[in-house]
């Protein structure tokens, strides 16, 4: 049995029959990673609470939020882990990579160093996560066009080389935030369906409907600002 299918099915069975907040069809564990101050926490705040503050508070260690989304009448509970970007927390943050089904790897389009570190973060994913984890590369702060030092093309090219999807985003102006999460969820659902098709045994206890039946079209990755 493919590990991906096993995880999805197991989590599905766990979620069933439980009341209140535990009532979901699937649970996806997602991580947001990237250099310090690229906007990971703001990105999550925008998505989960539709809020933004320009005050910078460096994340200590790790934090998380939960958000439930619906896809083809299925409730998908997203457990989104917000990791600290600073090196000193690396031991604790990498411990949470295990079992993650998706990553948002973020850099800041106004910070060359954060873009240069993408390759290293990608290696971290490969080292501490598992092969089927899906990754979306996000170039954040695209509202700050005047301070841009990383072009859209550079971001897109790197994403292609690494085999990741790509968006430019702005937590501040709420650009492509929801789309980034939705695309990551779609990628995970696609992968999950592939696993179920490959090995029907994993469908035991899992819903029969495919989550990919009416996947939305790809979003425009560029920043429309």
């Amino acid at each position, binding site marked *: 049995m493919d590990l991906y299918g096993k995880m999805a099915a197991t989590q599905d069975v766990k979620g069933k029959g439980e009341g209140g907040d535990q009532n979901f069809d699937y649970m996806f564990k997602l991580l947001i990673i990237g250099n*310090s101050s690229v906007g990971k926490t703001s990105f999550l705040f925008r998505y989960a609470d539709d809020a933004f503050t320009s005050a910078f*508070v*460096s994340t*200590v*260690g*790790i*934090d*998380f*939020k939960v958000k439930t989304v619906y896809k083809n009448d299925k409730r998908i509970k997203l457990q989104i882990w917000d990791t600290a970007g*600073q*090196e*000193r*927390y690396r*031991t*604790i943050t990498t*411990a949470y990579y295990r079992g993650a089904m998706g990553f948002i790897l973020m850099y800041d389009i106004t910070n060359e160093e954060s873009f240069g570190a993408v390759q290293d973060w990608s290696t971290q994913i490969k080292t501490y996560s598992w092969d089927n984890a899906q990754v979306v590369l996000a170039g954040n702060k695209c509202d700050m066009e005047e301070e841009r030092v990383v072009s859209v093309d550079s971001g897109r090219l790197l994403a292609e080389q690494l085999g990741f999807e790509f968006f430019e985003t702005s937590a501040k102006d709420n650009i492509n935030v929801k789309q980034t999460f939705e695309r990551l969820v779609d990628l995970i659902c696609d992968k999950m369906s592939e696993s179920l098709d490959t090995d029907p045994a994993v469908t035991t206890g899992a819903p029969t409907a495919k989550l990919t039946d009416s996947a939305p079209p790809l979003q425009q990755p560029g920043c429309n600002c």
Partner: protein
Amino acid sequence: MSPRTGIFAKLTPPSAINPNDFTRLISNCISFASTRTQEYLVFKDPEGKLQPSPLALTQVTHRSVNLDFTDTFNCTAMTPEQRILLGADWVWAILEKPTKNPKIQIAVQVLHLPEREESRNKNVYQRMVEFCTSIGKDCYALFLFFGKRDDKENIYGVLSNNFAAAFGKCDKIDRALLENFFKGLATKPCLFCQQLSSVKLP
């Protein structure tokens, strides 16, 4: 750099301030915060209407320690989720210039009297020790007791960057184990302030 506002201004006259003496700055502030918290600990509303919750008491302390040195010192309150994950209520940090990366951190966990304590995961002590250990020797764990069974009106603290070694052979860390650090000591409020002063700061 000079302190301008905040409670520190009330503690020490400006002329007596050595900008590099963080130990004194922080200890003074913590001392002030402890005194303020102590007032709540011993306060009894004659009508029995005001009873500060453990969380409120915790917030009195960490919000009182608000040095006006945002580029060299900060205090980060943990979210409810982080309190569960990391075991800390807040984290103080002395920052490195110009990166503003923490140079020394103190993760603080408040322990209330058992009768006041809200239900808390038993592993919360262990979690904070593990969190500090994962960072390294420049991260200290401070367990802050808002009253002890035999002295309900004082605040005690035990601070170390080496709890993992101290508790190495123990199956679990609990309140009783932490209180052992105070055995043989005379009643001394704000003990942790004195311990803090022994921390070598930059």
